[in-house]
């Protein structure tokens, strides 16, 4: 059964007819062509489909689109500035070689953006906990943590 919902996706209002059983992952990928939202497992195990709903990171595969009525959704496509500059987290992922196959990357970046929204700083150990819901098979998390620390960590004391 289809129902009409309204949600704001990457700042734009979308009015959509959705199947009441549809996940937000399916709606974003299939109806809105927002393919940064990756499907790794479909059951909330891997974190690849993470998006922000009203600023909170959720697995889009576990979130019914019906629940998003009236809410603001942010995906990785919504991070670049209108003139194409990268968000600081995206730039840190580039600089720290935190990207390999790239499939877990958009989800991890969205969790990092959620953390940025909290306006505080994190230790490396805290960051490990914050991203534990994201599986990555390429990087061993080392450079991902380096990238996150660069933007969200405490300022490094200058050597010497």
């Amino acid at each position, binding site marked *: 059964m289809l129902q009409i919902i309204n949600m704001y996706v990457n700042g734009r209002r979308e009015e959509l007819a959705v199947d009441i*059983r549809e996940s937000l992952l399916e709606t974003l*990928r299939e109806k809105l062509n*927002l*393919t*940064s*939202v*990756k*499907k*790794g*497992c*479909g*059951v909330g*195990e*891997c974190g*690849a489909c993470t998006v922000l709903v009203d600023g909170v990171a959720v697995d889009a595969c576990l979130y019914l689109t019906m629940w998003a009525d009236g809410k603001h959704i942010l*995906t*990785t*496509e919504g*991070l*670049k500035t209108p003139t194409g500059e*990268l968000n600081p987290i*995206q*730039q840190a*992922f*580039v*600089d720290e*070689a935190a*990207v*390999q*196959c*790239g*499939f*877990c*990357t*958009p989800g991890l*970046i969205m969790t990092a953006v959620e953390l940025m929204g909290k306006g505080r700083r994190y230790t490396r150990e805290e*960051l*490990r*906990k914050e*991203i*534990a*819901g*994201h*599986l*990555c*098979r*390429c*990087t*061993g*998390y*080392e*450079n*991902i*943590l380096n990238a996150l620390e660069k933007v969200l960590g405490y300022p490094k004391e200058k050597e010497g």
Partner: protein
Amino acid sequence: MESVGKSMKRVDARGKVTGEARYANDLKPKNCLTAKVVHATIANGRVLSIDTSEAEKVPGVVKIVTCFDVPDIEFPTAGHPWSVEPAHQDIADRKLLNERVRLYGDDIAAIVGTDNVACERAERLLKISYEEYDPIVTVDQALAPGATPLHPNLRKDNVLLHTSFRSGELTYEEAKEKAAEEYGADQLLEHSAVYQTARIAHCHIESATSWAYVDTNGKVTVTSSTQIPHIMRRVISQALGWPVGKIRVIKPYIGGGFGNKQDVLYEPLNAFLTIACGGRPVELEISREECMASTRTRHAVRGEVKALFTRDGKLLARTMDEYSNGGAYASHGHAITASIATIFKDLYHDEYGCRSDATTVYTSSATAGAMRAYGVPQAVFIADCLADDICQAGGFDPLKFRMDNCVGAGFSASNGITYYSYSMKECMRRGAEAIGWEEKRKAYAGQTGSVRHGVGMSIFMYKVGVHPISLETSSARMILNQDGSMQVELSATEIGQGADTVFTQMASEITGITPDRVYIISTQDTDLAPFDTGAYASRQTFVTGKAVKKCGIEFRKKILDYASYMLDRPAEELMIWQNQICEKLPEDESAKIDPAAAWADFPDVDFKPFELKDLPNGEDSILRDTGNIEGKPGKVLLDMKDLAQTAFYSLSRSEHITAEVTSHCKENSFASGCSFVDLTVDMPLGKVKINRIINVHDSGRLINPQLAQAQVHGGMAMGIGYALSEELLYDAKGRPLNDNLLDFKIPTSMDIPDLETIFLELDDPMGPFGNKALGEPPVISVAPAIRNAILNATGVAMNELPMTPQRLVEAFREKGLI
């Protein structure tokens, strides 16, 4: 070097952090039909009938095909270069859908519909009847007398293949007699043990996925997440019985492969389904559960070993009888099992020799295939558990034992693969120094209490590419654009490892065109991209790198010939330097790189580089070419842009400057390295905390140090999972128990400590830029190093992977430690 050796940022990084990089499923058209594979619910038997009549009535169902509808063609799936000799061809033992069920979850039917709900509803309405045989899930069950042969047409029993490898002339018993004469029987010690590795899943985060349609020209066109587009094209052709030219495979960015996508998975079925639906686009994305249980796995291997050594730590002889669980279908056949036996034999030098027997066994369980480092993690786990157990038995220091007995400089394997550059011992020295080996071994001696510390190590060797076991060939194409920039087109694939970036650096190095103007075509389309066999065997920077170099030399020559025409000066007086045609001045003698001087950084290295011998077809001159380093840039004469414009549009001499070459690789070398681990074991909890882990690698010259380090990090994490938590489990009926990412424990960020890396950059004369294998090696020595550190901490030899808390607690209890 201008570009090679620099930590250039990945060419695909921006596309991947913005989510704009497109993967197979992102590219499917809007009207795509969806397919679902129907899996058998028995582990061994035969499908007698499938009644589809009710299922076909489900609204949205377009087509149902069963094992009774597919071509009667058995085909191979391994991502190997095809052999023209029938005896060496991969085993063809499966059909698109199988009437004979050989594992729980075997593919017996497929449903195509307008959406997944329709397909799943239809699946529930299928009426399937089976004839059922006893499941033969384990190696012992499959080898037991009277076990049903899974492939009676190919093998009378379930032994896929048995081979025997040996070094030295003597048998183990003869060696023992001779050693007794030579050293005295009282000077000899023996150790025997059985080691068991686990079956694991690759767990690339993108599942195996493809979509296919028949194009207007009649070609079946498959877009797939694969490491091997050209091989896939050949396999689809074999599976359908269609000519190769009517198949087209497109490989966009892929979300990890690790060897699973070095096999052809569901793509031939996908091709068949689109044909069955009149060429309409059909997607076939399997679920995570299907991906773990129904694609490929790492072989679980049992090694029954014996070793003879002297009281002062000299290794005299070893034997291994190795049994490898190959699962239901051959996939890579015996190749991986044989690789385990070979590396077990070669990693150490036995004075009287070594025998290793390898048996691959068909069982009714998930098919085993390639996974990162192709059997060598199993080989090294067995060889290096044994090495430390020998040390434990004889009271030797594991570092000294390895220094005294490991494979030596200049080693050449029986098939000709040679350590052209060798620094195994220097790797060990650097790792030992970094972890503080001597101090820690002393500090950790004689511990009591329930929480103990340990330090352990393991070493590895890894050959580059597949020559001479298979063909090593690669081709490359370079094309000049009107602005003086260039395209590079290859069929070597970017699978996350950074291939596109290092090939960009190589092309820039040789042509003198800066990396920002080198556009590598990341997507492989078999209708367009020149032939290469793809990403596996840590071969691409070595084999394809050589093709890029050869192509670059030819491309550079064509540009300089045109420059010579424009400038009316001999080409020999010109060079390309940062997108400019310059005068070429003789190189300063002082700036010339003396290969011997480079080795002076390694005073302890036990071996000096080989003289590069003459190789056929001028291969040696390709290897010797150092790009623009040969000369020094002088006066700027012409911008590449002006040259290109003229070449395109000159009324007197228009020429599209391109180059295309094939490179055939007939020499390869070994990479080597080691892992060192310091850890704490909480015995009552069975909990292992890794305090420090260091990987040392000799992969020759690094093309991109930052990406090389990242590659090592990933391998180390995979090794930690292999050591401590990963195992695909089955029940007695052959049903998978943990085929999902919740119950199959790959490491999260909480399970991995900070990862330390050390590189020894020794130029290898056979590498196009002095480089050797790096992609797979980082995973190899991690698990045995962890195991040996647990042995050092507790005195308990864990002989089975993974070393889970349950297994550790059980072992500590058995020894009366808790």
